[in-house]
């Protein structure tokens, strides 16, 4: 028995199939992963992502702290904007990938992966000590998060929440909701336009029901299964699958989120700058299956000569793209677009072609 989100009873009512994910009992699907996936691409899906963690950072040292602990450049982000960033170890290994919302130079709000909440918060607390005016707070236990994703998401959110202003892509606003406030962020993990809505736990059922009611036929409850196939089509990383402490952002193809920041120091800088300049031994690539069959996380990748040259991090049949796609770390010397690689599984070998990422460019 894992932790339950405030929406657990709603999932049971909708006859969801429940699985354990990062210690939480969450729906993997309600009806069919394929139908839920395509509902998001064509109309809209609603997801309970309350397992995600939230860490609040305030104080006059908030900006220098965020600049030091995360790899992206928070000084160039406007207030009211959200951005993707990484938290790395000194050796460049990825501790977590996060979305940072910038309220102002003295207030940031960070959305972290469920599996990393404790680890991230201790890392943040540990490094916060060196900064004078800083208050860090782990709000994960008190906040819930609902994602509404897909081309119909803006109309549904407008109808259900009637926000005073509609944030544009990668922006967020705080909106009054009864006596409380919610965060309405135009972000997501599906490759579609959509929102992530953060609220007090007590409001989760009410907002979930309201979105379902206003969405009517246009909105489909979606589980973790569709969330995974959607993010693979959009080529977003899943912590623990595609990225981890053994790999750096440069190896994962995330150099765009590692910035020079006018020469200031940040954790991991030395290794990351060196890798940006000289390249890495391995790199994350995309592939498309030529054979019929689906590679799985951890399957070895072999060259034509049978030499092991990498490992699969994620793969699925893409229900919208209608082909099997995935990502793998490959030895850099073997990376050439269009090359055929073998993926070894018990009793069979699947031929795949190296392709560029993302697979699905989306409608954002």
């Amino acid at each position: 028995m894992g932790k339950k989100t405030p929406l657990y009873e709603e999932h049971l009512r909708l006859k969801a199939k429940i699985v354990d994910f990062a210690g939480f009992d969450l729906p993997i699907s309600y009806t069919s992963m394929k139908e839920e996936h395509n509902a998001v691409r064509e109309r809209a899906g609603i997801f309970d992502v309350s397992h995600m963690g939230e860490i609040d950072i305030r104080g006059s040292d908030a900006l220098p702290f965020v600049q030091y602990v995360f790899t992206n450049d928070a000084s160039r982000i406007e207030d009211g904007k959200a951005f993707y960033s990484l938290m790395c170890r000194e050796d460049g290994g990825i501790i977590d990938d996060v979305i940072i919302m910038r309220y102002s130079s003295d207030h940031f709000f960070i959305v972290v992966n469920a599996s990393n909440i404790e680890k991230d918060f201790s890392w943040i607390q540990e490094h916060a000590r060196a900064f004078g005016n800083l208050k860090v707070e782990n709000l994960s236990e008190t906040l819930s998060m609902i994602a509404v994703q897909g081309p119909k998401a803006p109309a549904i959110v407008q109808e259900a929440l009637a926000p005073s202003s509609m944030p544009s892509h990668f922006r967020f606003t705080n909106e009054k909701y009864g006596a409380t406030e919610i965060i309405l962020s135009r972000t997501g993990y599906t490759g579609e336009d959509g929102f992530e809505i953060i609220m007090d736990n007590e409001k989760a059922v009410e907002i979930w029901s309201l979105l379902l009611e206003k969405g009517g036929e246009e909105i489909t409850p979606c589980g973790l299964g569709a969330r995974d196939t959607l993010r693979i089509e959009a080529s977003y990383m899943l912590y623990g699958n595609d990225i981890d402490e053994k790999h750096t952002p440069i190896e994962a193809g995330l150099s765009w989120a590692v910035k020079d920041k006018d020469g200031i120091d940040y954790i991991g800088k030395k290794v990351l700058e060196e890798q940006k300049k000289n390249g890495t031994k391995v790199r994350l690539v995309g592939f498309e299956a030529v054979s019929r069959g689906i590679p799985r996380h951890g399957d070895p990748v072999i060259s034509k000569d049978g030499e092991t040259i990498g490992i699969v991090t994620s793969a699925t049949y893409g229900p919208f793209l209608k082909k099997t796609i995935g990502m793998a770390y490959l030895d850099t010397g073997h990376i050439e677009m269009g090359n055929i690689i073998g993926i070894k599984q018990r009793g069979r070998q699947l031929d795949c072609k190296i392709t560029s990422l993302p697979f699905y460019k989306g409608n954002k």
Partner: protein
Amino acid sequence: MAEYLYTEDHEWVLREENRVRVGISDFAQGELGDIAYVELPEIGKEVKKGEAVCSIDSLKSSSEIYAPVSGKVVEVNEKLRKEENCEIINKDPLGEGWIFVLEMSNPEELEKLMSEDQYNKMVEEE
């Protein structure tokens, strides 16, 4: 009336004289979720009871289908060669979603399989 028999690996068989039609149970399709590919066996392939005959890939996992009895593959569900048709296993696992037909070499092996009631009991206990 024809009667479905089941294996512990969640295959069903339906006897048609000296042949059996084989598929996966409703429970199995539910557990696998949306099926994306079925790698069909070659016609004429000889298999022993319990040997892997072919593989099936769903969005969630890959698994093998084992021979419920020994015999020779004499027919396969050609519809399953097309990815878009594989969902018939999810929609009608005991009918349209059959996978292959075996000509039995030892029909007595059928006696070892479970009845529908026995199978349902096993699944409930899992």
